[in-house]
């Protein structure tokens, strides 16, 4: 399986309009510039579209950072 972080990288760069942005597992809305609430909605929609997953209600609210999101996506892609 391709590294999910690698697949998320261009999505974050496009949505946040910063082609030099480097996200890591530790990235979150507080330490990444421009990651506001609407950017968040866009990120989720783009990730769903691009990776072919669908997040259920409530699945996203406990995520602390990109690492948590990657783990969630991995679980979804395995099942």
């Amino acid at each position, binding site marked *: 399986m391709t590294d999910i972080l690698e697949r998320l990288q261009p999505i974050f760069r496009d949505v946040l309009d910063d082609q030099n942005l480097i996200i890591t597992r530790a990235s979150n809305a507080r330490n990444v510039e421009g990651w506001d609430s*609407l950017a968040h909605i866009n990120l989720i929609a783009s990730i769903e579209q691009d990776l072919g997953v669908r997040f259920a209600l409530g699945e996203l609210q406990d995520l602390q950072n990109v690492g948590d999101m990657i783990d969630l996506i991995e679980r979804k892609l395995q099942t």
Partner: protein
Amino acid sequence: MRQELLYPFDAAHLLRHRRRLRRELLEGGSWIDVRLAVLAGSTAQEVVDLLELFLLNDGIRPVFYQSEYNRYYEEALFDSARLEEFQPDVVCIHTSSVNVLRYPRLTDSADEIERCLDSEVTRYESIWNALTTRLGCQVIQNNFELPASRGTGSLDGASPAGRTHFLGRLNLELARRAQADRRIVLHDLASAAAIPGLDHWSDPARWFSYKIPTTPAGSAMWAHSLANVIRALYGRTRKCLVLDLDNTLWGGVIGDDGADRIRIGRETAEGEAYTAFQEYCLELRQRGILLAVCSKNDEAIAREGFSHPASVLRIHHLAAFVANWNPKSENIARIADALNIGLDSMVFVDDNPAERAIVRAQLPAVAVPEVGEDVSRFPMMLDRGGYFDVISLSGDDVNRNAQYAANEERSALSAMYADYGQYLAALKMRAEIAPFRDVFLERITQLANKTNQFNLTTRRYTVSEIAQIASDPAYITLYGRLEDRFGDNGLVSVIIGRREQAVLHLDLWLMSCRVIQREMELAMLDELIERARAAGIETLAGYYLRTPKNNMVADHYLKLGFDCVSRAEDGSRSEWRLDLKTNSAPRNIYIARITE
């Protein structure tokens, strides 16, 4: 123009690249600045972000004010200091069917339902009044799309207590009141939602999570539709439709195929699609949109296409006509000069993707929708783009004659007819009946080979046989085209008569089922008798050859007054005669004749 912002657009792409697109769009051009307040009943940010892209693409640079979430009513009526300070040019009441405060309940009495309706309508009206008197601004009010789910299926539309029924009434009432006040413009959200359809429009999960009622695609459709209204409000409606000819206004290449062979008219599915597109263009013209032709063709030959009997568009409908072999981008620029309008007032339609690409690259201000190659979809693709949308049809735009004619038609339609004859008279039928012409040979052949029911002999012919018969003096041939109040039915009837001395044998008599019971056969017979007599014929000989499908015409000749001279015992075949010396009085009374 950024092509990615013209319909059909990819919402996911627009959202993902929104910030870059916005940045790039803002680098260019001169702007109309608009202060736009959005008073929202849901989280409007996504629609607002997309709206900004669509407006920037149209040369409108918005500055936004957004109400607190779901405070559209309060901010408009009471709490408007911040809004007043913003001094909006336009206020959008960003509501949808999630904002209906109280739908009727199934147990509600008729009075209670009326009160529900009245309280919704009054609420919006008080918003409008507060905004227009205090801020002097233009108000855009959404109507209501159908809800994502309904309780009682079809009954929901039928019963006054149903949501579907209620929203329909609410929309009509809002429209009626908005029409009475030119400071209020109704944005037809219901139709915007219908384009993707409710399954692709509504997303309850996003509603619960973010208070966004729509999918990303729904938000994009909403924003685009709203941008079309704002564009129209600021007079950025396009003024001129520039059209290619071959395979755009008619099927085929007129320079190769000849004017007789282009495909247009009611006779074939393909021809009908081109006719429908021409009619669509003519409707645009009737409400003030200029039509122009830009074609790679020899000009004299290209013009012949508009003299084709089935062509809806005529040369005099065209404000400009350029046919030559120069690049289309140059020709479109010439047309803009000649008509004294800007390139940003023009829309170009061409079935050829290469031509579209060149015009886009050379003349970025011209809108070149991705119409595809299928003419049947051209009207839809132009509609969706909203290029010619207007907010009202008052003033010079309207073709009043056309309106009056339409009203007249409606009142005639609603009238009751005392008998069938009155109905036929009200159809105002007109027929063109004449010997075969080259331009119709293919249609005649096609009709001969596919008509099964109203067909006396069911003889089949090839196109070369038909062509041979058409030019053979031993035959009297007739085709019939029939028009009525509702339009042109096309070529619908064919007779082939073969003479032997003073007898004309009717080898073929057929009629399309779409005009059965119109007495078209009487008009055909009248013409046949006239031409036969002029040719010295004394007797018509008719034949009925039974097939499994043509029972409906077993008594055709009997009804027309022919005498039966022989009949097979099993009824499979009969022969009939009409003596023209004693039977030549005209029979048709309802169909007027067109003479070419």
